[in-house]
């Protein structure tokens, strides 16, 4: 299977290289005319708006784009990205094939896959023609070409990286449990002090995938489309684990926090002992804002944790596709990526490849302060790749069928 993953990656890299080669020549001209077209346009950027620091980062980008390119960014703060997908769908139903209400969408995984299937994305691939695409390297970071094993086909531009990390209060807990087995033991010994965001929340689902990946010992079936035959067999260890944990979860597993900021707040309140985030710098930033005690630290599981890339996509009926591309290009620039990686701003790891940057640029990335609770790259250790997206809706449905009836 290792072989077939390599094979997949190789094909994509080849495909990408070909595109890159043919495109770079015409790129510069094409993009200048795009910038001209984008002048004065408004980009409705639909992005999850649940985190103040992300919102202010988008605000920062908006100011620069309006100054340099005369593009007006309106951040439409979503509570749930799927609601934006729903809106685009509603527009498609209504036959609105241009002048749609969303120009740029922060998306990945399941939502991207859903949009791709319902043909809600820009028909033509556009990402490889962005001038700043040259700073990325799909060889060292293949995930920028495959979103949860779903080929991006040049229809979404990488924005940032994420890795699942756990945080705990070192003043209360000496050694956190660094594997699913240890976590299970911890939950039994500390009833009511562990929980996770309620699936289908993105982080909640990621936690389920993390457990499943760890329990199933790198089962390669998870990287293939799920089917009715293998689903229950492959996921059986996960349900066993959850069933035995449930009675000792926070509120006996009868209710769950809505999402990871709420989970983080519960850690800050001392209601729970361990929180989960998909951003290694999240805890440090929360300490700086006074939302978590300064004794909070982070850790990852010994076997590695889930990692993925998040993207920007343009809907098929975007009203200002040209400006949206200019925005996506800016978001991919070393300048914007550096700002985003700054833990005092957002702390979202970059998708750019250091060897492809200038000396000064890569030095700036190196010199970024690490927050008090942020692990070093070495400590973050190995990452686990996302399972095929077809597992997510099935896992979601199975979790809901098992635990959502309130019994």
């Amino acid at each position: 299977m290792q072989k077939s993953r390599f094979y997949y990656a190789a094909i994509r890299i080849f495909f990408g290289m070909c595109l890159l080669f043919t495109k770079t020549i015409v790129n510069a001209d094409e993009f200048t005319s795009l910038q001209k077209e984008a002048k004065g346009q408004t980009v409705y950027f639909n992005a999850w708006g649940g985190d103040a620091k992300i919102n202010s980062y988008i605000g920062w980008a908006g100011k620069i784009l309006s100054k340099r390119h005369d593009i007006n960014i309106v951040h439409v703060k979503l509570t749930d990205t799927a609601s934006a997908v729903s809106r685009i769908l509603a527009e498609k139903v209504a036959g609105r094939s241009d002048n749609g209400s969303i120009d740029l969408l922060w998306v990945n995984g399941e939502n991207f896959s859903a949009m791709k299937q319902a043909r809600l994305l820009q028909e033509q691939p556009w990402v490889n023609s962005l001038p700043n695409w040259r700073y990325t390297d799909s060889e060292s970071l293949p995930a920028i070409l495959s979103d949860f094993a779903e080929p991006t086909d040049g229809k979404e531009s990488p924005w940032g990286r994420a890795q699942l990390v756990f945080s705990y209060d070192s003043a209360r807990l000496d050694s956190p449990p660094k594997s699913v087995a240890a976590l299970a033991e911890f939950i039994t010994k500390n009833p009511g002090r562990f929980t996770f965001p309620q699936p289908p929340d993105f982080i909640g689902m990621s936690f389920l995938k993390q457990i499943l990946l760890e329990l199933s010992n790198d089962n390669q079936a998870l990287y293939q489309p799920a089917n009715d035959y293998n689903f229950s067999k492959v996921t059986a260890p996960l349900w066993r684990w959850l069933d035995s944990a449930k009675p000792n979860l926070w509120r006996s597993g009868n209710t769950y926090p809505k999402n990871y900021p709420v989970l983080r707040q519960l850690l800050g309140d001392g209601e729970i002992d361990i929180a989960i985030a998909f951003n290694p710098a999240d805890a440090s930033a929360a300490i700086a804002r006074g939302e978590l005690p300064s004794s909070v630290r982070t850790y990852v599981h010994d076997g590695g944790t889930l990692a993925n890339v998040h993207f920007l996509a343009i809907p098929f009926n975007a009203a200002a596709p040209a400006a949206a591309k200019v925005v996506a290009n800016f978001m991919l620039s070393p300048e914007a990526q550096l700002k985003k990686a700054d833990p005092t701003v957002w702390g979202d790891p970059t998708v750019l490849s250091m060897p492809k940057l200038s000396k000064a640029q890569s030095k700036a990335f190196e010199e970024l302060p690490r927050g008090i609770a942020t692990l070093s790259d070495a400590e973050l250790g190995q990452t686990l790749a996302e399972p095929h997206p077809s597992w997510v809706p099935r896992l979601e449905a199975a979790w809901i069928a098992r635990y959502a009836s309130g019994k």
Partner: protein
Amino acid sequence: MRGTPVENNSPPVQKQQNIAITSLTAITALLFVLPVILGLIGIIVPASGYFPALGKNNFSIDAARDFLAIPGLGLACWLSLKTGLLATGISLAGSFIILASFSGSKTIIWLRRLLGPLIAIPHSTIAVGLVFLLAPSGWLMRLISPTLTGLERPPTWGLVPDPYGITLILGLVAKELPFLLLLALSALANKPLSRQLAIGAGLGYGHFTSWVFIVLPLIYRQIRLLVIAVLIFSLSVVDMSLLLAPSLPPPLAILVLNGFHDSNLAARLPASFGAIWQIGLALVALLFWCISEKVVSKAVRFCRWRGWRGHSAELWLRCLSLFALLPMLIGVMGLVAALIWSLAKNWFFPETFPASVNLLHWQDMASYLMPVLNSGLLATSAAFLSVMLVFLWLYNEQGLIQRNTLLQIAIFLPLLVPQISFLFGLQIGLSWAGIDGSWLALIYVHMIFIIPYVWLVLAPAFMHMDKRHEHVANSLGLGPVKRLFRVYLPLLAMPIGASLFIGFAVSISLYLPTVFVGGGRITTITVEAVSLAANGSRGPAGVAAILQILIPLVCYMVVWLFLKYRFGKFSGMQGGGLYETT
């Protein structure tokens, strides 16, 4: 044509004009029912399995089957039914108890002053406050820990979120009780109260019993439609449920909303069926409510027949009335907690107050500016247009809508159909017309929710206006335009001001319609506040909550001061309306 002595002898030309005006009024009234009907069609079609965009070109029962297979559906429905009925019942009972025990006293005048600003507090703000107050690590717990409880850490049990829906009921009561109290007070304004009570006392009934036997049935009959609107709203509330309701399973409305927002696009079909199911649930609740009405009225009649004078109950009810004030108190206290959170830094359990205070979250004000401006602009324009429209309906043909039950129901329809049941369909309709996410659409949709309330304030004021003023103006030769400006506007200034304010407050608190129709393009402070609070950002949510109540309060002050100084001298000439200056 109104009340003029020459009504029957009016020349045929004028008659034709009147018919034109009448039909124009009816048509504009119907224009505001249209969105509900369109929205319902837009729900019924996908609910019956037809959705070409997803390749479903045939009608089928799949949507219904899939919806009914949702785990926990029964519990979700039970939760909705329970919260809706209990919240409405408690609010109504509480408002009546307060009214009965405090009427005629100074407290009621004081309460009435307080109620205006209080009903302007949006649902979501109350919910945010309750979370701050009642969570296991909330302010109440911090106030008594560790001194009383011995807890260094918050307990592992708690009311937010609670599986029984108690917090949700409490939140709804904190919001609806003042509303119903205000409605009851204004219904009372036109009743010969002291005479009725004197009769009651003369027959040997206690103060309280005379209220229950004589006055309350009259008031209830007058506000019944609105009580039903409260019932249906409570049953299908979304913004409060997002913050206060249990999540496994959530109330039905949230279950349906999740379906509409599911990344699996096919989930919209069962969700559409769920939206219709929600109407069914509303009907069940309504049936239950009507049966309860019958039972209560039988019981009252029985007590009356037995000659029960109820002196023994006086004391008990007086105690109860203090309890009835409790939800309002909790609501206000939650707001104080919100204010503290907006300033807090490093506030960890079990400290009673934050370790340090800073303006970090308030410095971020610029990011709230847009939603605040949007809220203000939207509320002002929607309220003004609604008041203008209703005023013109009443001025031109005031009897028409009052005489026609169908038109009356039409005006109240948006309040009588659960919002979740028609907004998705409406969104598709507006998108089809190419105007979703536009100011035009948003103001229009806000207006359909405002108009019933404006109607509620203005129509009785028109009805009870002393027509002799107009006759005098007529005989002095004033034309219709002059009459409007010289007689109607000054005399009705108070109710007009009140209706403007109510329209404004309703618009500010609208959550679901803004989300669906505004399409995220036009976001208001209420949408922002719910999203921030749902995402656990307490500091920013505190700021948003405070801003959210500041806007209507500023509006209240402006309207009140303007009326007092400009039209205050007319207030003695005109009774009625929700905001008399008594």
